[in-house]
């Protein structure tokens, strides 16, 4: 055996065959398939809520003078006399085709009302998310780098204070400052994006800011915590000892791993933004989805309520999936 006589480099004999890309692909499948399952659960919830309704829609629409026969005829017309599972499947598949039924009161297709209002919310939420990421990201990184310093204490204090503030107070505060005192921006109203970015921004910036600050505070807090945690990890010490330089250690290594939890906070924040939009739309008098929901709620208009809920949930799910994909791309090793 001549190989034993020569002087071989020590050899690492380790796990049988490396490269298990299987797990990575399984995580991808999970990330993409889970939202579908969740959508089914959410739609069940939405539909179930309608089924729980104590008032008979037909009776409500037809009024006190309706005879039982009238009500039965109307129930049949709306398909309300079929078994619930059948109704659900029918409702879900219609919804997937874009048919969300008709309003009990106006008989306008629910989808039409919703898609008239949705662009306002999407544009507003998009701007709010952008602001939240910019403000929260900068504040969080700054606080982590100056841990214990004045900036850190300021960010922590402001973030905590924002968390104790009822959301509508913020919106009204902004109106007082920018519209009433400075007279710089309109106090309410809306022009669509098609009228030009500048015009749109004049009306959208205040409500978007009001919506974003709460989430920005959460992002700042989370990013600070996880970045401080990452900066204490051994691999950061390792990178420092390799002489990689502060900027590279921070942006190339630590931030990459710290950003996941902050992105997750953003994912959780999307429903908060859409929920907060209800209040904001009322304060700034915007023609959005929330106003529609509020109006539908007042009239107990079940199809319209279900429609807004389902569409909101869908938007949230899409946003969450995008966030999950981003997290997956950033941290391929999965949860540690």
């Amino acid at each position, binding site marked *: *055996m001549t*190989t*034993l*006589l020569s*002087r*071989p480099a*020590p*050899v690492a004999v380790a796990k*049988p065959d490396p490269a298990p890309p299987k797990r990575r692909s399984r995580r991808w499948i999970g990330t993409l398939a889970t939202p579908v399952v969740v959508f089914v659960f959410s739609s069940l919830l939405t539909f179930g809520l309608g089924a729980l309704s104590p008032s008979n829609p037909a009776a409500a629409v037809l009024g006190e003078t309706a005879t039982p026969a009238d009500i039965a005829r109307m129930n049949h017309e709306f398909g309300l006399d079929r078994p619930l599972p059948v109704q659900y499947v029918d409702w879900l598949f219609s919804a997937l085709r874009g048919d969300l039924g008709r309003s009990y009161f106006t008989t306008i297709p629910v989808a039409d009302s919703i898609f008239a209002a949705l662009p306002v919310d999407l544009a507003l939420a998009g701007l709010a998310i952008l602001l939240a990421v910019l403000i929260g990201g900068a504040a969080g990184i700054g606080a982590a780098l100056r841990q214990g310093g004045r900036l850190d204490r300021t960010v922590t204090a402001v973030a905590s204070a924002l968390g104790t503030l009822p959301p509508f107070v913020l919106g009204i505060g902004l109106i007082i400052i920018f519209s009433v005192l400075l007279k710089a921006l309109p106090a309410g109203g809306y022009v669509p994006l098609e009228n030009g970015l500048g015009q749109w921004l004049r009306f959208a910036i205040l409500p978007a800011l009001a919506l974003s600050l709460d989430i920005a505070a959460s992002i700042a807090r989370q990013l600070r915590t996880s970045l401080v945690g990452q900066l204490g990890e051994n691999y950061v010490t390792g990178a420092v000892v390799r002489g990689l330089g502060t900027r590279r250690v921070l942006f190339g290594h630590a931030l990459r791993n710290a950003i996941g939890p902050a992105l997750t906070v953003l994912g959780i924040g999307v429903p908060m933004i859409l929920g907060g939009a209800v209040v904001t739309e009322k304060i700034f008098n915007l023609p959005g989805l929330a106003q529609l929901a509020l109006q539908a709620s007042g009239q107990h208009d079940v199809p319209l309520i279900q429609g807004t809920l389902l569409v909101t949930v869908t938007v949230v799910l899409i946003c969450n999936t995008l966030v999950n994909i981003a997290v997956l791309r950033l941290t391929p090793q999965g949860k540690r």
Partner: protein
Amino acid sequence: MSTLLAVDGLDVTFDRHRVLADLSLHVQAGEILGIIGETGSGKTTLARAVVGLSPVRAGRITFEGTDLTALRGKARRAWRRAGQVQYVFQDPLRALDPQHTVARIVAEGLVVAGTLDRAAIDARVRAALAQVGLDQSLAARLPGQISGGQRQRVLLARAVALQPRLLLCDEPVSALDASNRNHVLRLLADLRDRSGVTVVVISHDLSSLAGIADRVAVLYGGRLVEQGPIGRVLSEPRHPYTALLTASAPSVRREHPIPARALRPAPDHRPVAAFGPDACSYASRCPFATQACVTAPSTAGSEWSVACHHADAWRSRLAVGAMSTRRTA
């Protein structure tokens, strides 16, 4: 000497991954048995299987005629409360409840058993602490307030308090420095000498293990590759893996009889055959493997047994030049 614990044909499978394969090992009453092997060789799984923490797929584990693998529900709980077999966990920090005092931790098994009154339990706890050389003043401390060596001994005291007949210690010294390591191992030897407790120790420090153990069992890839009297097995290993382990053990003065590199596969080593799950578990890494190794070797010998097709031949294939000592200073 009589057999206290008998493991026969044990198979343990996690997620379709076979962690222990057809493993048989007998522990004699009153002996100290050392178990060695690398990470993932199945040492811990074997110890956990004995106390019912590993999913046994096939095989029997009998303690003085009681089939432990068959115990379920009430019977198993009664068996456990009797405290005859105690498992000492590897990582003291994870195995001690951070909110409980040392005294409460050591008393737990006695309290659960419920056969003693408070005063008797307290006396047993004091005795157990003394037995492992811990000061009584530590009794009121929390695990976070004592040193690593002390935590390791608290784990031991918790097991000793139940006056077990068999003690399974999982890497009790891996986190300790040399002096503390010897201290804990000496405690185990004392326990055996004074109370006749049978001890199974999993350890990777061969030299100190050889100081206290009677026999050793070597595991590789979920199979038992060699077992026998520890002094003879370690000085004249009959399995190439045991030989690699002894040659790799760092030492302050020894000139290794066979350099470790002569026992490792060459950098361009290619397995001589496709070794499947039924092959010798060491074959794909063994520089002496041949076509014969595609089947698992049977275990030969009783007092000193080895599972290798080439147990008697591989030494002759060591190149003469490789027999020089490896220290080049």
